């Protein structure tokens, strides 16, 4: 029997680092605290790799299924005789996978930050917060029960609040961090109510119980209904609401683009690979329940995911701030993952969507972290977030350029990069279950390729603006993480995911569906081509080159014509008719609704303030009135 008790160190090291750097950080030189934090995370990463190796390759399987192991589980509070709150480390395929993802990206971000944050005020504080965040995220993924998960979930919220608001002297950063915190808290209230409901009926918080046969049986046979839906569906939808908040699903997505105010490495860590996928992880963790007890909830998840992926991809085409493009792209990709879970069944081939979702989570973490860190390197070089102030950077930033290109090709889903494999599985899963969503995802695949290469060409090719300082490549400490992640992005797709992470923990064979894969690559290529034609150089020059090619008039005419169509379609139709209204809707209606809630509350409080007049006789009057009103209600109306 292999012992996993060492995995507790995966949690102890980061929290120790947080305390060390938080309490004594100011006593060290900045660089020392950075190196300390990075080494700590390095150890965590190696431990996670070792755990993954042992789990997947050494641990014997029972009846061919991967085991679920409670490496640690201490009872923390005895709530009642049957209900206990525990804390521990839970080892199963998805938690092990998440350990690898979180520790890898966190380590890369730590390393990168030594270069990126050099000379910033509060360097030590930054590393302390990074450690705290990593601790919270790791605690979340290894949670043995839903209550532990909730506690770490909130800790993730608090530490991301601190990280996004790191530049506290910038009012926009502060506003963004507050928005992120409040919106996710608002979603979390659904989560909390869902937990209460679920634990009340299943009499347990433990994942092993509630997603095991007994928990499923109890949840499934609940006869109580509320507003026409069963209590089980309500509970699981409310829990999904918490997940949708953290994963920024429409309409709770509004915090994510603003959260780009945080330092770029933070965006890479929080908004690419860890916190935003917590919602996906949550649904995956409770997947057996969703699948058996509340298929309606899964349908909701599929449509929310599908809509968000399309909505965000369209908006991404119009953004000029490179980090915002990436933010919307993240929304879109997480929408993919949610959709995959939503269309998945349970067990074997039917669980393709589940496996595809986890697979895409894994590959996306690598290439999106790479994109964000690459964007950080660009911003570091030109001191701007706006692509209008960039161009021709390939000459100055060779390593960033190459790694960024790899990431763009990966996200566009080109064979044989990792994005291709995971996206293909998602499309195949959608194809089997829901043709409408499948078509939507094809469209999104094209849009994704287009907006990523729009970004790529604008930044690395196109016309070079006048730079005040000559841009220079980032130091090695920043480019090494880029190179590592680039390699991971290329090869991660060759992992035999269907043999490792499946809905019922039984490995199965998955095949590449050529009927799905070939068109998806073709659509990606079309997107890249449009971007190439429009943004490789200034549009006027594109036109000149087309004319200058000479040759047969009709050919020129046709090329010109096609060019115009492309221009018309992208610039006129997509930009003006779709993207702008969608962006407007987002800014005014969705944001406005959220602001409206706050406004109404403040207004009401102003109105009722009149009652608090300071006049004692009024107080006495209200007192007696209240007593009499209560007496009347309960004597006459109450039965």
């Amino acid at each position, binding site marked *: 029997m292999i012992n996993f008790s060492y995995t507790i160190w995966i949690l102890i090291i980061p929290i120790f680092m947080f305390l060390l750097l938080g309490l004594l950080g100011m006593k060290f030189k900045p660089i020392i605290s950075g190196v300390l934090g990075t080494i700590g995370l390095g150890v965590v990463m190696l431990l996670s790799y070792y755990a993954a190796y042992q789990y997947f390759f050494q641990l014997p399987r029972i009846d061919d299924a991967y085991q679920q192991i409670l490496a640690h589980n201490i009872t923390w509070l005895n*709530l009642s005789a049957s209900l206990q709150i525990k804390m521990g480390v839970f080892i199963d395929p998805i938690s092990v996978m998440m350990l690898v993802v979180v520790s890898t990206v966190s380590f890369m971000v730590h390393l990168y930050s030594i270069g990126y944050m050099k000379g910033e005020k509060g360097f030590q504080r930054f590393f302390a917060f990074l450690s705290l965040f990593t601790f919270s995220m790791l605690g979340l993924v290894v949670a043995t029960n839903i209550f532990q998960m909730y506690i770490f979930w909130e800790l993730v919220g608090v530490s991301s609040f601190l990280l996004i608001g790191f530049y506290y002297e910038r009012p926009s950063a502060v506003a963004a961090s507050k928005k992120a915190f409040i919106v996710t808290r608002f979603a979390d209230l659904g989560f*909390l*109510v869902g937990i209460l409901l679920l634990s009340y009926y299943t009499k347990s918080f433990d994942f092993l119980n509630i997603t095991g046969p007994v928990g499923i049986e109890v949840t499934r046979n609940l006869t109580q209904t509320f507003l026409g839906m069963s209590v089980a569906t309500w509970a699981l939808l409310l829990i999904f609401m918490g997940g949708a908040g953290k994963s920024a699903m429409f309409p709770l997505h509004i915090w994510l683009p603003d959260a780009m105010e945080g330092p770029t490495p933070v965006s890479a860590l929080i908004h690419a690979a860890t916190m935003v996928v917590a919602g996906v992880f949550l649904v995956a963790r409770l997947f057996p329940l969703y699948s058996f007890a509340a298929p309606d909830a899964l349908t909701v998840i599929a449509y929310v995911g599908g809509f968000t992926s399309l909505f965000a991809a369209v908006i991404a085409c119009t953004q000029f701030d490179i980090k915002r493009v990436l933010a919307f792209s993240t929304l879109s990709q997480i929408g993919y993952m949610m959709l995959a879970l939503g269309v998945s069944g349970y067990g074997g081939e039917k669980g393709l969507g589940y496996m595809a979702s986890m697979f895409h989570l894994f590959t996306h973490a690598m290439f999106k972290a790479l994109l964000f860190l690459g964007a950080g390197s660009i911003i570091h070089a030109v001191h701007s977030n706006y692509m209008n102030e960039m161009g021709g950077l390939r000459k100055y930033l060779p390593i960033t350029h190459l790694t960024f290109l790899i990431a763009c090709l990966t996200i566009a889903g080109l064979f044989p990069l990792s994005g291709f494999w995971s996206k293909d599985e998602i499309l195949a899963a959608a194809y089997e279950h829901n043709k409408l969503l499948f078509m939507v995802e094809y469209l999104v695949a094209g849009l994704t390729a287009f907006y990523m290469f729009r970004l790529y060409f604008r930044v690395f090719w196109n016309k070079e603006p006048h730079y005040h300082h000559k841009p220079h490549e980032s130091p090695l400490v920043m480019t090494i993480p880029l190179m590592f992640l680039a390699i991971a992005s290329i090869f991660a797709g060759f992992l035999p995911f269907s043999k490792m992470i499946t809905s019922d923990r039984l490995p199965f064979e998955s095949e590449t569906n050529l009927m799905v894969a070939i068109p998806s690559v073709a659509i990606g290529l079309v997107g890249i081509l449009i971007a190439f034609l429009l943004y490789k150089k200034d549009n006027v020059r594109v036109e000149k080159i087309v004319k200058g090619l000479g040759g047969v008039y009709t050919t020129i005419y046709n090329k010109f014509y096609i060019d115009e169509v492309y221009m018309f379609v992208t610039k006129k139709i997509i930009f003006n008719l779709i993207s702008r209204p969608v962006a407007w809707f987002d800014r005014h209606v969705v944001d406005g609704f959220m602001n409206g809630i*706050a406004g109404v509350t403040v207004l009401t*409080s102003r109105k009722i303030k009149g009652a608090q007049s300071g006049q004692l006789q009024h107080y006495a009057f209200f007192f007696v009135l209240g007593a009499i009103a209560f007496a009347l209600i*309960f004597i006459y109306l109450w039965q």
Partner: protein
Amino acid sequence: MNLDQFLIMRHELLLIGVVLLVLIAELFIKSDKKHHVIPIALILFLLYTIVGFLPAKTGVLFGGMYQTSELVILFKNILNVAVFIILLQSASWLRKDINHERISEFYIILLSSLIGMNFMISAGDFLMFYLGLETATIPLTALAAFDKYKNKSAEAGIKFILSSALSSGILLFGLSILYGTTGSIYFTEVAEKLVASPLLVLGFIFFVSGMSFKISLVPFHFWTADVYEGAPVNVTSFLSVVSKGAAAFIFMVILFTVFKSLSNMWGDVLYLLSILTMTIGNLFAMRQKNMKRFLAFSSIAQAGFILLGIMGASELGMTSVVYFVLVYVFSNLAAFGVVSVISDKTGLESMDDYNGMYRTNPKLSLIMMLALFSLAGIPPVAGFFGKFFLFTSAASKGYYWLVLIAVLNATVSLYYYLLVVKAMFINKNDAPIAKFKSTFTDRLALIICVAGIFAIGFASPIYELIRKLSFGL
């Protein structure tokens, strides 16, 4: 009275001893050295607090008028710790010249009020309960007017005594109706003879109104804001923490024991009261700029949450209420402690004055943030568990809508608690509150509070102990 009986009543008797000793000390200290009373009173009260924790007998005295159980003793100890923290926090305020002549007055009046509370929560019949309640309240009105040279403080005293006279009147009216319908004032006998009739409902509602005044539940809360603002900070914290906690506890005990058979009805009464209290308390708190008023209104909202636990009407419910009060003591006193220190040193009490405080007084700002996070119920600080247990208690009775409203209110409250955090850490201020060094007693009080906030959240034995002592219907 033999030793056994003495041991049963030791909290009250020892406290009377402390008051007398302070009075005697006052007689023998020269008039220019009155501040020596402070350490004497602190040490005496500390000894009394420690003795309170020693294991002792429980039982019934005076033919059932006075009773005590392990849970009651535990609750008295919670109150003692809270009062000890308040005494520490008030030390530097009392040292000011203007208070010099009245130092022992403060101790004598405050501790007398505590004696009343101890009797109140040990009551076995309505007479003892009422006597305890009044013994607790009347000294408090004097305390509210303690800064008598300030108009606001005098106003607070007058408003407090007049409104509590009104509430006592209604409460007594309710109690006499109860006596009229059941023929007894003993808790156990009233419980047996209770039959729902319109008259009894009237009496019950009047009783609830009177208690709601003490716990400041909406719509019986109007006195709170003016009194809390006018009274000296330390008195405000006593009112909002100790006085409210004691009243909530006896209210729960009476509902659980005396009105057991009416539990369906009082569940619905509390349903209404808790929605009103949480929501209106929050709406008012949101607009407060004076820190004392702000904490006062936020404490109204907190009282609304306590009702959720009571409504659970179970062992879990009682556990959650006592646990919440314990958490609330430390969190609220930490917040009041910071406000008190700043008010003492600078005289500033407005939220805007706190802008940029993190730069100059980082430790105080951090403690304040911790306290506010605990009040707002952000995990993993103790306040979160307090609220969580209250919600669980209400949810296990099937009050899903109420829990939903409560969680929404908790989210709204997060907004205004964050406003203060934002002021301290984020808002720009060219002239933030100057850096200052707090006194030993202030620091000790804050350290106890912070330790409490962490210890209660993380140590499960405390919760388990309360659960063991609690009982349901």
